[in-house]
């Protein structure tokens, strides 16, 4: 009689309804690893391999070469100007959008989003049209020997344009989510605007702020298209690091090009690592941001 009660449990005759069968897991897993490995990982590995293709010595020489150092300096200066300005903008924009109501808010936010969707070349083009020889202010600038394009100011402007949404886009949803209660409480307690911001708002947004400044900085140092249009490509003078990479590559100096690229790639990896770290430790605060 116990035959009819042969145990069916204890051995899995089938997979759980929400789990994929093993063969499918293996297939999708292989496709994923293969795809990511080939598409994303290989180029990265190649950068470092080519940079050190002639040994560490050659790599080092390429890095300390005067034009390279000049490009590093230029990149750093441009970022040092653009990032703080954009951070200030981001804070101001987030403050007025998150803590107040006013007509046209949506349009404002869309406008802030715009550089993200615009081609980098167009981002540079618009400044050429304003400051270039045949641009609106072209004649005036030439007459007064003011150099915007083909010089630092132009590079800074183009960099500002492509990176200014970063901080704003991160802070706006974050501050919107946090609401106005705390700031209103501070106001009733007599705090000034700046005081409220520093003591109440800033601590709440600090990780989102750090995160977005990090990304803003990485993009500022790495921007190519927009800066390429406005810079004039003058070797050793108006080439940022990415432009210098292009110059070296086009001159068949592969070790040099990849050496500078390796520097930029290391910066990218550090940015990614810090980004992951911040995401992991401060997931809740950043969650509000990523809902967008």
């Amino acid at each position, binding site marked *: 009689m116990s035959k009819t*009660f042969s145990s069916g*449990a*204890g051995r899995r*005759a089938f997979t759980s*309804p929400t789990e994929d069968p093993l063969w499918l897991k293996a297939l999708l897993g292989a496709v994923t690893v293969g795809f990511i490995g080939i598409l994303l990982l290989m180029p990265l590995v190649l950068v470092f391999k080519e940079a050190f293709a002639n040994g560490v010595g050659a790599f080092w020489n390429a890095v300390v070469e005067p034009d390279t150092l000049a490009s590093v300096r230029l990149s750093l200066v441009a970022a040092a100007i653009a990032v703080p300005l954009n951070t200030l903008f981001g804070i101001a924009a987030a403050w007025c959008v998150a803590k107040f109501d006013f007509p046209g808010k949506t349009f404002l936010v869309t406008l802030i989003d715009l550089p993200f969707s615009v081609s980098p070349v167009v981002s540079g083009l618009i400044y050429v049209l304003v400051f270039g020889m045949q641009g609106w202010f072209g004649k005036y600038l030439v007459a007064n020997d003011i150099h915007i394009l083909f010089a630092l100011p132009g590079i800074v402007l183009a960099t500002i344009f492509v990176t200014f949404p970063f901080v704003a886009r991160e802070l706006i949803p974050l501050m919107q989510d946090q609401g106005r209660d705390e700031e209103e409480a501070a106001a009733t307690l007599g705090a000034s605007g700046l005081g409220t911001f520093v003591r109440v708002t800033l601590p709440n947004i600090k990780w989102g702020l750090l995160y977005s400044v990090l990304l803003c900085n990485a993009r500022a140092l790495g921007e190519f298209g927009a800066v390429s249009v406005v810079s004039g490509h003058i070797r050793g003078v108006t080439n940022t690091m990415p432009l210098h990479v292009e110059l070296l590559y086009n001159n068949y100096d592969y070790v040099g090009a990849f050496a500078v690229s390796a520097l930029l790639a290391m910066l990218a990896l550090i940015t990614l690592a810090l980004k992951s770290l911040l995401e992991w430790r401060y997931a809740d605060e950043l969650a509000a941001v990523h809902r967008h």
Partner: protein
Amino acid sequence: MSLTVDSVSKKFGRFAALNGASFVAPQGGFVSLLGPSGSGKTTLLRILGGLEFADSGMVRFADLNWLDMPARTRNAGFVFQQYALFRHMTVADNIAFGLKVRPRARRPSRSEIRERVKSLLDLVQLPGLEGRYPSQLSGGQRQRVALARALAIEPRMLLLDEPFGALDAKVRKELRADLRRIHDHAGVTTVFVTHDQEEAFAVADLVAVMKDGRIEQYGVPADVRRNPKTAFVSEFLAA
């Protein structure tokens, strides 16, 4: 064609959710698994539905080794506590889902499906709501749709996991009565999980009071109430 559950056990890691649960219910019976959270009632239900695997024990129903079959083939309608309605589908498509996924040979025609959906909506007292989306319905309405969806496949077993838990008292009472009515009409063996003893006693033919993965007492509601077998049962019912 009774439902026989024999010494079913299940561990999650080191936690024993079920520790040898057993009961027998007649064909067409209405059993309530009653107990506090952590008693294993939902785990047992999910095992009956094929959504979890038992570590040991066995279940026989309709002359089948129930646990040998994947959820897909058991034809056990399952009603979830949070409804689990397909948000991107209309009410009609939700209800018809179980019919539409059948292999061609067993699939009813489009007009048959439409008829079936209509009569089911009438049965759960939501006539005319075919074209609505779940987001447009109240909680009580969603649960009725979930019930209709489970019934559409003409299940041989109906499993409900605290289906009225998320609803307010008045709606619960209505739905409870409707569920009983539908059960009596369809004659389907029903297992109903709840932590609310009033609900269990009002609606079920047989009540299984559970604690720590075991069935402490099992019987007709009146018996269980009058003759609690253990201290836990009498305390739980007194609460």
